[in-house]
């Protein structure tokens, strides 16, 4: 896990979310925008959003904590999500996931010590026909096994370096 989390100022957060204020139900889009920019939703965002939308701080916290996708600290540079939903489990997804975690020496939500990769569970990517499924940096991959994932991770690394 990364110890260091950049702490944006209230003004910076306000600047990022202000264009979304006119949307109907703007809280979720705002949280996504914040996570997009800082890689997580810092605690400092809670009072800013509460003030902007005239909500209780608790309400904002309730929404953030309801969605596992919103992180309270930044993830690694790359994020791998492995599906743990029923259809993927039925075609051996659980074993694939365990094997990947073992090779990386991580548990769910863990980040490699060099900050390169975070592995997270996901419950259905809508790719049930070609399970086991995974998603790497927002790109879905079907019919994965541990080797395929390892290979994808390497390619990506090269791409990332290039």
């Amino acid at each position, binding site marked *: 896990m990364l110890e260091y989390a950049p702490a944006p100022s209230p003004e910076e957060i306000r600047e990022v979310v202000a264009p979304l204020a006119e949307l109907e139900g703007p809280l979720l889009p705002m949280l996504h925008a914040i996570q997009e920019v800082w890689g997580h939703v810092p605690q400092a965002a809670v009072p800013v959003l509460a003030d902007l939308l005239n909500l209780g701080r*608790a309400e904002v*916290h*309730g929404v953030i904590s*309801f969605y596992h996708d919103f992180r309270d600290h930044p993830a690694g540079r790359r994020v791998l999500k492995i599906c743990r939903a029923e259809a993927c489990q039925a075609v051996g997804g659980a074993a694939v996931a365990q094997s990947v975690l073992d090779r990386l020496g991580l548990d769910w939500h863990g980040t490699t010590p060099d900050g390169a990769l975070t592995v997270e569970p996901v419950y259905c990517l809508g790719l049930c026909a070609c399970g086991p499924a995974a998603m790497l940096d927002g790109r879905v991959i079907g019919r994965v096994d541990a080797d395929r994932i390892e290979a994808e991770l390497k390619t990506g690394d090269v791409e990332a370096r290039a």
Partner: protein
Amino acid sequence: MKDFIIPQFPPGDERDMGTPARNGAPVSLTIDGFEVVVPEGTSVMRAAFEAGIEVPKLCASDNMEAYGSCRLCVVEIEGRRGTPASCTTPVTEGMIVHTQSAKVRKIRKGVMELYVSDHPLDCLTCAANGDCELQDAAGQVGLRDVRYTPGDNHFDPKGIGARSQSEARLREGPGNPQFIPKDDSNPYFTYDPSKCIVCSRCVRACEEVQGTFALTIEGRGFDSRVSAGAAADNFLTSDCVSCGACVQACPTATLQEKSVAELGTPTRSVITTCAYCGVGCSFKAEMNGDTLVRMVPWKNGKANRGHSCVKGRFAYGYAAHKDRILSPMIRDTIDEPWREVSWDEALSFAATRMKGIQQKHGRRSVGVITSSRCTNEETYLVQKLTRAVFGNNNTDTCARVCHSPTGYGLGKTFGTSAGTQDFDSVEHTDVVLIIGANPTDGHPVFASRLKKRLRAGAKLIVVDPRRTDIVRSAHVEAQYHLPLRPGTNVAVVSAMAHVIVTEGLMDEAYIRDRCDWDEFQHYAEFISDPRHAPEATEALTGVPASDLRAAARLFATGGNGAIYYGLGVTEHSQGSTTVMSIANLAMLTGNIGRPGVGVNPLRGQNNVQGACDMGSFPHELPGYRHVKLPDVRAIFEKAWGVEIDPEPGLRIPNMLDAAVEGTFRGLYCQGEDILQSDPDTHHVAAGLKAMECVIVHDLFLNETANYAHVFLPGSSFLEKDGTFTNAERRINRVRKVMQPRNGYEDWEVTQMLANAMGAGWHYTHPAQIMDEIAATTPSFAGVTYELLEEKGSVQWPCNEAAPEGTPLMHVDGFMSGKGHFMITEYVATDERTGPRFPLLLTTGRILSQYNVGAQTRRTENTVWHDQDVLEIHPHDAEVRGINDGDWVRLASRAGETTLMVQLTDRVAPGVVYTTFHHPATQANVVTTDFSDWATNCPEYKVTAVQVSPSNGPSDWQERYNEQAERSRRILSAAE
């Protein structure tokens, strides 16, 4: 609500009906074979309760909307598939419901079993034992076993698979990451997540009942827990205002009063009335023997409808505080220490001195100050003491310094000196205009009802120099906040009236029908003058003309418009003028005489309305009748067997002036601390010092007692019988829940003092005093204790014309016949800013503290506010080199004090704000002796001041504290 253990108390049914009542066309259905008729929109659950059939439930309570999460209330409905939750299913015509069947019994048992699988089996040692809805529900559904083996759970701190926390205590284990320890940060209650069943009742109570939105459910699924504030918060650091609604809503011991944990569940309860603000909430004082265990808002209380605030709910500990004085004390001079003496000695000492003063200086050389915290009956006796025994009219009360302009202003325009509505009226309001009031701090229970209405869509206009919480807080936002410069109320309200009249937005039909048309035309001509236009007064008031115009249009055209105002209106040199201009505004727009409208003064103290009604003013006998009228005097002369002085007596400021001159020498002051609460402390101190006999009758050695010669210990509201009258004219019973710790109720002490002076009074119960009030005062003619027992409460006027009281006034016409428009010329106060004193100080109150703080400072409420703090705009602070948290000197032409500073943009540049709850600050050293032209109500809200950095307390504060300490010495009786 957790009120099952207490036997029912008449009048009124206190059962929790599960879901709120509805209004609608009658619908008839059959439940378990019984036919029930309920209004359309009612839930099946409530219909069942109406029929006397209890459906087991956990997440439902009738003070919040149905939620449908616990699945315990499932029923079978013929012709419908499945087992719908009865709380979320509305009734339909001809519906046939079965609340008990093999199928639902099985479901309920299964649901209960799951609940209990994550709940510790510590019932016998639990603080909610006997007062737990989970326990009740488990009993109702007949749960006999929990078949699940211990697995993931929230209650076992050791992670050893224990079924109870007492078992877990015996052994060590690997620990349990799901276990969250108790949060005891709030001084009055604890939050124990290990007992939580996540029914969301606390979260919903905080949102729907209180309107603070301080709680949420964090996480999802099995991880869901109640959370106060955000991740790093606890209850104390969250937005929680400690109103107690969540604790009351909690079906288990998850949110539990610390007092119940310590003292056990109560065994009896007495219904009484809160002794804090003018809302006058009804409470159940829940007792174990003569020990008060907790105060719970009473569901059938018509002012509060089952809600409470931190003061009434929790801050009652002052009654048992060690500072409370229980023995009478006397001293010859104020330099001496106090001597504890017997009641007889203290009373004869006091009587001898008062008689001696009258012999030497005349019968008008002594007087009384009645208390707005004591009962109607006690206040009535104190003014009777001065009128019938002292033989003069020297009586005044703290309303002098708060709502005397209301009496004057509403008397002139409407013909009565009181608010026109009941609190329920707010539920029919479309536009709320708040002027100079801070309801979320000063009148929190009313504020909650108001916020509920605002969330339902009513519009809000706030006229206040500060951005108070009601201007903007979670889910509530004022359409217009008009941040006027302190002292320009009349100009702002007149400008609104100008807009309404010149744009033709007034309700002409109403004015022609209800008001004096000639007076209106005269007024219309006056107010139409361009000098009242918002554009003309903008420079003076600081309120943007466009906002003011828009606000005026909204108020005139937005439907039912209700005006609520507070001391920000009255405590000005033009307080009475502002009250009249508010009344003009209401009459102009036709907003008097039906639900949802009206002019509503938010009275500061619990019985300030009653104290005024009871003839506390020097010119008025009970019922606001002038003392110069021979026919009015005749009524009391006959009842009391004495001759009444036809000359009005002295007001408080006049008493003090006369004391300094040497013509006023003796004062009996009941339950009021004029030294701290009245303006220009130096002058008050000089007046008191000059007197020969100051009798203070109070719970504590207050600041005034530093200058007293006789101290008579008082009784708290828990220790006496009587009545309080709240801001909606509602006469509520105060009931004795324990014997007076000082030995006598306050009315008994006044009677003993009167008798020591030879009066020969023989009251044995306050009911007899009320009978005397009813016999002499037309607006109370129908009030008896029997009626109050029967109805719970009544609103005056209560007489032959209105035997059950009067919720709304001026319905078919004004009390004075026609409504009178008054000319309201703006006259600037003499208190002006200048180079030496460039800032304007305004004062107010805060939620956790009350008035001079004599009560709340002696409770754990000091956790929230342990000293008075000066609010200043960052710009004003910067140019003075002041930082947040600095110690500053606050100086005016009258005096100076020092206190801590807080930088905030709640106040506009040029305005500073503080509270007056703490004697160490003595904010009133700074306030001036300018006052309302009509009533002498002091101008607390406007003082020209300067703020500068300081190192510590001022010389005056040090001298004062030294004197206070010296004068509080007590020699024990043995010495």
